[in-house]
């Protein structure tokens, strides 16, 4: 690990002024991603600002029907919080299915959204494109864990997948990420948070200079049911091969509103508006899950070793559908 400066801040203001100092800094929250990256010297920050002391950023509370989640809330907090489990169960499930209890107790929701790709080329010895090298080794290499959507060379040089479970659930609930910047408050919908990964922003997130995520805001839902399902290479402690979040609101046996979030399939968590539109208006007892699943995977462009993710996504989507329509 390379040497670095370390500052622990006690107030939001001191954090913001440290960030705005012009000195290149990196924020340290749970550290479950950052510290291993530093040990492997994949990221080499000059200075760390430890924000774990900012108690005002670990709230989970309702204000006027809207749920506010402080950026320092841990995944454990979210997985077990009554407001989350009852109103936004897919978020609670996504947090509860991430990693293992020890890691969930440490990792914050803000940090989770910003974690770097888990691609084994990026994390390992290969000098891949994302680390400033020439090629994406995964594109024609060991790509069984990689993207099946938005992965053509013109769409993205990197074919890793966004590893966050909560991001998929937050996308499902149209959550908004709030941050403080030197210019004031800023709100970005989770769907707009992620772009194509680049060597400058391997996680695909390019926040304005000096930004600090303060909270995540979820607007109330008009009823409905939701679920988050995750396929993993073992029973626990693994990133998703594919994950599906589904929200459906019914009225008189017909689908009034549907939202589909999918993880593990692209550099970004994905929504599928076309399939969502197709679901709306359908009679729950008669809908054709197979043709909806076909529509969902239409346009997939699997790589040499991840074609299995297509039937896996179909299967997981059908299971999610049967659960919310149950």
């Amino acid at each position, binding site marked *: *690990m390379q040497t670095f400066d370390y500052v622990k801040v006690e107030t939001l203001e001191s954090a913001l002024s440290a960030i705005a100092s012009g000195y290149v800094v990196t924020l340290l929250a749970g550290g479950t991603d950052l510290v291993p990256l530093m040990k492997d010297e994949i990221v080499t920050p000059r200075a760390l600002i430890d924000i774990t002391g900012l108690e005002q950023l670990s709230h989970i509370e309702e204000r006027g029907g809207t749920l506010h989640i402080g950026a320092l809330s841990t995944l454990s907090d979210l997985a077990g919080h009554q407001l989350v489990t009852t109103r936004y169960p897919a978020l609670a499930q996504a947090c509860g299915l991430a990693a*293992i209890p020890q890691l969930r107790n440490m990792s914050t929701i803000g940090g989770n959204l910003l974690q770097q790709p*888990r691609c*084994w*080329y990026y*994390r*390992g*010895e*290969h000098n891949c494109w994302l680390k400033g090298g020439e090629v994406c*080794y995964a594109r024609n*290499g*060991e790509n*069984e864990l990689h993207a099946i959507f938005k992965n053509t060379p013109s769409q993205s040089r990197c074919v890793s997948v966004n590893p966050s479970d909560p991001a998929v659930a937050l996308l499902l609930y149209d959550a908004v990420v709030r941050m403080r910047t030197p210019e004031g408050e800023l709100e970005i919908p989770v769907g707009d948070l992620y772009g194509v990964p680049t060597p400058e922003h391997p996680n695909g997130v390019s926040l304005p200079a000096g930004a600090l995520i303060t909270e995540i805001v979820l607007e109330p839902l008009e009823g409905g049911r939701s679920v988050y*399902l995750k*396929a993993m*290479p*073992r*029973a*626990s*402690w*693994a990133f998703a*091969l594919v994950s599906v979040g589904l929200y459906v609101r019914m009225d008189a046996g017909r689908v009034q509103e549907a939202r589909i979030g999918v993880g593990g399939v692209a550099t970004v968590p994905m929504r599928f508006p076309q399939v969502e539109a197709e679901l709306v208006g359908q009679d729950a007892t008669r809908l054709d899950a197979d043709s909806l699943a076909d529509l969902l995977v239409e346009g997939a462009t699997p790589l040499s*070793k*991840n*074609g*299995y993710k297509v*039937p*896996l996504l*179909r*299967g*997981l989507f*059908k*299971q999610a559908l049967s*659960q919310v329509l149950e």
Partner: protein
Amino acid sequence: MTRVVKTRVEIEGRVHEETVVVERDEPAAWEAGREFSQVGKSANRVDGRERVTGAARYTYDMHPAGMLYAVVLRSPYPHARITSLDTTEAERLSGVRGVLSKNNAADISWYGGASKLFDDELRFAGEEVAVVAADDLDTAREALQLINVEYEVLPAVLDVEKASAPGVPVIHPKGNVLRDDNDQPGETYSRGDVEQGFRIADVVVEGTYRTPTALHNSFETHGCVASWEGDEVTIWESTQYIFGVRGRVASALKMPESKVRVISEYIGGGFGSKGQTLKHSVIAPLLSRMTGRPIKLMLDRHEENLLSGNRGETVQKLRVGATNDGKLVAIELESLCNIGAYGTWAASVAGPAQELYLCPNVRTYTLGVRTNLGSHSAFRAPGHVEGTFALESAMDELCRQLGMDPIEFRKKNYADEDQVTGNPYTSKYLLESYDMASRLHAEAGKPSLDNLPPGNWKYGVGMGSQVWSGGGGPPAHALVRLNSDGTVEVICGTQDIGTGIKTALSQVVAEELGVPLEAVRFRLGDTQKGPFAPASWGSITVPSVGPAVRVAAEDARQQLLEIASYFFEVPAARLQIKDGYMTVEGREEGKRSVADVLSEVGDYMIVGKGFRGPNPVEPLRTWGAQIADVAVDLDTGRVRVLRVVAVHDVGRVLNPKGLASQFYGGILQGIGLALMEDRVVDERTGLVVNANLQDYKIPTMSDCPEMIVQAVDIPDTAANHIGSKGAGEPPIIPTPAAIANAIYDAVGVRVRSLPVTSRRLLEDLVASNSAPIPAEESGS
């Protein structure tokens, strides 16, 4: 009394002749049905408390004063030649105390002469280039970046199936394949007439079966701490074989073995890879001598997974034939084993095909193939796990084609004697294993699918069976010291790699001496103290060292009785020892504790000496059967193992609780191999992409099924006088096969390649056109 004899010893399928010292006549075997006070009773680990409280000091915990840290610069290429190497800049870095490389190290031959401790030619990514010793790890790591190396990159061979093709570059002085003593490639075994067998077969099953390269991932990585005092060196080492490390270091450093002391009191797991002596064990003493300071050289997880050994991948072409009445008439197996860059032997993949079933016509061919990857090593029943997966998958397929019950079929093809040597076995209770496993499985009922995550789950059941060695043999020696305070110390040069050997062998000593288990302290893992004991591999420790400690305890007991006879004023033969008290036979009055009796003679220490006698002529085998219940989610290709019933014939059970642990661990490691473990190598760069615990998946507690484990527990009195066989390896052997057969039962897909990941199963399900689901309906 002392005499020298020659005896046959078999370890992991390899037989050799051993010349051994027999000190005196061995005691009679503990007969079947004998009443014991300690043996066969469940005991907690005698060192459990020190392990869980952190009091146990592992290699990594050693920190002699003035110690330096060493790290290794490793080849970034799978095959390359060093054209220039300059370490001067690294040597100048403040805090660096020494750099060792081909520029300044003596020529020390390695890998059977194929290479050197530091060689110009590097044959796998991760091979040693230079080593830096510095005040701390960060400085040492920084110094590595200051070493200037130029490499000529050479063509690499990575594909085990193409390594012996014409035109492929030769990567090893002895060629790309292993040759036998007659310089012929591969190992061939044959009996009967296989062609004739297939001609009379009514049903033939054939397929190509593949098993992955699996990484040991012991919790504690390999490594050592070395420190000199005068002309003697002490090495704390995480090893399965302290005397092996001693011998290798002594020969490399050209010094007498008695001046090399190797200590390994606690080991954080060893599954075969710690039976070998790796380069760090020689490098650390060299650097220590060079710097005049103790050196710690521990591998990190990445290094551990690149170079410390593995279960090499296999490709097995298997063909089996039977007549309509269910009699096996032919087995033919051709296997390739990836032995990595420097492997010197091929795993015994063909063992199960040769021995597990009665079959007159068998031909096997095993070819070890070299590749530019880390060398393989022993890994818990090397070869037999892989071979059993193929053979038992084929037997399951044969049973289905014949319409026969898998256990009925196995009983019909039961071999009463060893068909390879023509001898009877010392014991074989495989029939009992089949029956007990069937009964336990039936009694347990169908496992619940209620606790599974939501899914389209299909239930299936499958079985596998197992043959393996596990007899051990001489030489193995031990001392038992009976102190005047009544406490007992066992001194033995064995090691407890986590199997609980300290506990089980303490029970043997307590039994023989008639003292409580708490009175016994087992001291092991130090070449300077314990008499010689063999490596902890091949499931040999209990059957090799167990008899030696029993003889030592018996010797001590006899001396105690003779001393006590003076004070009790009766002949020694009339005295008894029980629970630490001595009495005259048939009398309760006058009872005295052992300590009390010994206090009469002042500070006298009784020293009993024990040895392991020669082996019987008959081959020794362990046996077993496992039945797995699985659930398969048709939608996602997920497999969950719900339950495994395991019954093994490992002779007399010394500690049922400890044995159960061995069974649990073997089954869980078998589940890993069956469902998730797989070293992944980038084909273009030859680099391992998942040499870490994030990407290389091993089972977690959530993957752990219900396990119902049982030993047949009939002593093998022909094997040795304690009647026990080894148990460390048998329980992993049938697990992958049983799981694969259960998956077929559940979804009708015959998976011939491990691990059975979602990817593999979904690909196979799609290929078989969403396969017709077998008749039995799922319980979900």
